[in-house]
């Protein structure tokens, strides 16, 4: 892994944690612990730029930092759930966009990624919320359709829309930056 790639990923991770700090609000007033956060947007942008493997590494980095700092309260359970949820999103979206690098490919990858993440959250909630947070199984099952599934769908959908509207501009700027660097390297200006 080259240094530039690694540092870019580190910055994306920093932005992700920062967004988690800045933007978090509950979607359903009835379930205030299901908070929307934007942490997935930089991770998805990193995935589109650098591929699914880097996206997965980013997810791990962000989740661990999150567990150490912002939401130490959700402890390691939150981090592990985040890794699995966002990880499934990132792998699906990254693999598709890596193959089909078009606007349609991006839309398709985000839609399928959102669906896979929502699906992945069902067993995860049944395992982690029941086993570790102690909510009775029947209650979690009862909550699946009215809250947990729509929550994850809404969250993934909003993050997908934001990623889609931000990615093109950001990628263009990054490419421009690299081109600028190359120009500087090929035509150095020496003082007379």
């Amino acid at each position, binding site marked *: 892994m080259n240094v530039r790639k690694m540092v870019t*990923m580190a910055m994306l991770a920093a932005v992700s944690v920062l967004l988690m700090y800045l933007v978090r609000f509950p979607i359903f007033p009835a379930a205030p612990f299901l908070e929307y956060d934007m942490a997935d947007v930089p991770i998805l942008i990193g995935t589109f730029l650098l591929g699914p493997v880097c996206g997965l590494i980013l997810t791990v980095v962000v989740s661990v930092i999150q567990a150490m700092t912002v939401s130490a309260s959700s402890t390691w359970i939150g981090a592990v759930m985040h890794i699995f949820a966002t990880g499934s999103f990132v792998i699906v979206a990254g693999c598709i966009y890596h193959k089909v690098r078009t606007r349609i490919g991006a839309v398709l990858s985000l839609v399928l990624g959102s669906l896979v993440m929502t699906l992945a959250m069902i067993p995860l909630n049944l395992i982690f919320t029941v086993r570790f947070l102690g909510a009775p199984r029947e209650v979690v099952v009862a909550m699946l359709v009215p809250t947990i599934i729509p929550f994850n769908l809404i969250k993934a959908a909003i993050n997908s829309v934001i990623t889609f509207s931000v990615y093109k501009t950001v990628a263009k700027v990054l490419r421009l930056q690299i081109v600028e660097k190359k120009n500087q390297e090929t035509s150095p200006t020496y003082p007379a």
Partner: protein
Amino acid sequence: MSIMKSITIGQFVPGDSLMHRLDARAKFIALIFLIIAVFAVNSFVGYAILAAIIFSLLFSSGMPLRYFFRGLRPVYYIMTFTFLIHLIFTKGGNVLLRFGGITVESHGVYLGLFMVLRIVFLVVTTSLLTLTTSPIALTDALEYLMKPLRKIGVPAHEIAMMMTIALRFIPTLMEESEKIMKAQMARGADFESGNIYRRAKSLVPLLVPLFVSSFRRADDLAVAMEARCYRGGEGRTRLNELKAGPRDFIAVACTILLVVFIKWIKV
């Protein structure tokens, strides 16, 4: 949206207690075993034993107890929710209250309290690690503990390095984002009203400049690192080496014994 009141990232409080001086790796492993112990317990007697141990650890860290309980604030919702759910839905034992069609039974109260205590223990033990260990020491510890995973192709050093860089730049980017936010507000941007979708969408003019400036910083940092001949983890030396002494092994051994003890006496 609350403008960041405190820019401190993480919760680390510097100090010189026994807990502070323990090796970060030892604390990390000990925490894992403590968490296993919390899950292994299944009676209030077991929790009393754990509470005694955890409280003595909290006192030995020499920090005011409210620091630990501050970490509980964000989980109040989950705690009340868990308690109420058990109160209403867990049946069995004596009927304590009858309220229209809803009955509160003693098993519900018992299980509700039990689960709330479990969450308290989980949060407090995790705070014990994050309050007494600097994030940098934690990432170093993680790098060390992830070393075996390198055999299956996990870039342990790079992951730890990314965490360190990210932790270093979060406050910087936070300042940056505050500046951008004020600049966009001066242009009439509205971050606070509208439904969820509108609110999230209003952040796009904040995100683009934030990404652009973070990429610029990444570029500068990459040049600086390359200029200093950074070339990954192989053969790299450190300013602060992690050193494990006898007390670190004792600490880990104690937590393992605790798990074994709890399993053995079945409390």
